[in-house]
């Protein structure tokens, strides 16, 4: 089994991160924004795993499990907020939430 070089892992991770970020910025639907956020978190996770395997350390995987837990908690809260938003505005358009401007 040939080891995947760290560089490739990082490129993949960056790509995923950029895709996720673009999704967050470009999407109007809050559900999709949450999904894009998940992509970004996973991109970071990939980077951790890659780094952990490259240096033969367990820390990378420990970190990934922490990120997963965080993502689960965040999704729980995020979905709860989505339900509230749907009830209040009958829509999931993020641009409706612009009341806090200067």
């Amino acid at each position, binding site marked *: 089994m040939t080891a995947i070089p760290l560089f490739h892992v990082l490129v993949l991770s960056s790509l995923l991160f950029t895709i996720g*970020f673009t999704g*967050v*910025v*470009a999407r*109007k639907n809050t559900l999709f924004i949450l999904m894009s956020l998940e992509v970004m978190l996973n991109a970071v996770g990939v980077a951790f795993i890659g780094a952990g395997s490259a240096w033969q350390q367990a820390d990378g995987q420990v970190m990934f499990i922490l990120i997963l837990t965080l993502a689960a908690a965040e999704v729980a809260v995020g979905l709860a907020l989505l339900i509230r938003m749907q009830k209040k505005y009958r829509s999931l358009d*993020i*641009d409706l*939430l*612009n*009341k*806090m*401007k*200067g």
Partner: protein
Amino acid sequence: MLLASLPFYPLISFILLIVFAKRLSWHVASFISVGAMAIAALVSMRLVLELSAMPDSVMTANLWHWFNLVTKQGSSDVNMSFYLDGLSAVMICVVTGIGFLIHLFAAAYMKDDANFTRFMAYMNLFIVAMLVLVLADNLVLLYLGWEGVGLCSFLLIGFWYHEKANVLAARKAFIVTRIGDTSMAIGLLLLFNSFGQLNIEALSSLLQQIGSSGTGFSTEQLNDIYWIALLLLGGAVGKSAQLPLQTWLPDAMAGPTPVSALIHAATMVTAGVYLIARMHHLFMFSPEVMTYVAWLGAITLLLAGFAALAQTDIKRVLAYSTMSQIGYMMLALGAGAWSAGVFHLMTHAFFKALLFLTAGAVILALHHQQDLFKMGGLLKKLPVESALFVVGLVCLMALPGTSGFFSKEAIIAQLWSSNTAGPALWWCAIIGAFITSIYSCRLFFLAFLGNKRYRTGLVVEKANLMRSALVVLAMLSLFGGLISLDLSQVFQSARASISFENEPSWLHSVAIATPFFGILFAWYYFKNYRLTKGQDDYVLSASTHSFAVFCRNGLGFDSLYKRLFILPYTWLAKLNRNDIVDKTLMSSAWYIGLWHDVMTMIQNGSLRWYLAAFGLSILVLVGVTIL
């Protein structure tokens, strides 16, 4: 202490009047203001009595420490403290004594004015400022009083501010005297810079000490003294309405008549004379400036005399005659006849206050008619006022026996042999006296003799308050010359050795006879002013000869200044209508406003925009770190 309390009587009255204003009835308001002045006058008398008992004729009172000035030569305390010697004693007597009589008159004169309390309050404040001016023991305090009288003058000239002309006159007086004040302020700074001292006493002893020491003054110091004296003279010229800053005084007659009497005849305009007399130690060491003072006085007294000859307004005649009489005082100071100058200041205060107040009574009787050519024949209708006016005019002409005679002769007698004056100035003074008696006669003929030329009936007021003040002033004018003024202690250092040996013997007789020649000349020259013509609707009009008009307009100084200063200034102001400096300053405000707009635009509340900005800035940060 009595001395320290002196300015506080009018001050308390001022505060009471200004606080309670229109809630006070005429009786209460006039009781407070006139009463305060009466107390101040009594206190001044008492102080003078105490002063004469003092061995060195000096009293001081220290109220509080004001501030401290530090220079390379050491430090100098500037205190709120008063200094009373012979000179300031004369001044406080004039200020409070004449001030009291004028307040008494004003209480009756201004009785029907809606703003009576405000008027009396300003008058009181003026007395406060004047007392501070004459009692100050240092030049900073003197300057405070100096500016104070300027302020009160402004307030009182513009007292009837509903008329634009009055406001303009007030503004003119303020600005023109401010020019002199600026020069004086620079003089004070220069003085402090070169001698490190602003206390008048200490300064005079310092000057004496340097002057009498073996080395004397260095050239640099003499140069400094020259400039200081010249700049102080500038201040005096502004306040005392001398050439070239005299234009404000005739216009200042826009104020109520008691103001003209109090400020523009008896007290404020003499502040300049007082300043020079007070700083005589300094002026003594600069004979050139003394000569300038004498010449300025002489030219002013002649020009003002010519201007007075052609006026049609009774108050303006008196205003020009004030300028001319102050010219005499300046001439005396310039010639080194210090006590004669101060003596003339005192007697002039008596008779000019009398003249102004009597003129005020006449004006009041004629329903505020001030035009001489619409008076006439008042001698029979207003016998008391006429008699009082004659007393004033006789003193002004300096006929023998009156107070004006003693003081004016004292001045003229010292001119011929003075080191800083001379025969030329003596002749100026004689011609001035000649003109004085001509315009006095003209004034009397026009107002009191000849045909009745007014249309309305007379309001003959039986105001005893006014009459009593006038009678006291008339007594003072007639017999004030007998007051022996001993200022030798103040001016002891100044007693220069004048030898009267080379004088021709006819000097005194000429000086005494001149006013009579003037009367004789006027008697024939102004014949048609004095004779009663047959027809009843006889109309007399002022001469329209171009020279007479030129004199009437103050010898063209107003238009000259308008050409020289006002028009270029307004031209510049118009040119810079969109104020460049202001625009430059406002650009910073515009810049801040711009950023305000940008910042509010950024806070648009859109989450995705924030996020995008966030991501972009991280990119930039990382990029900058890597590169």
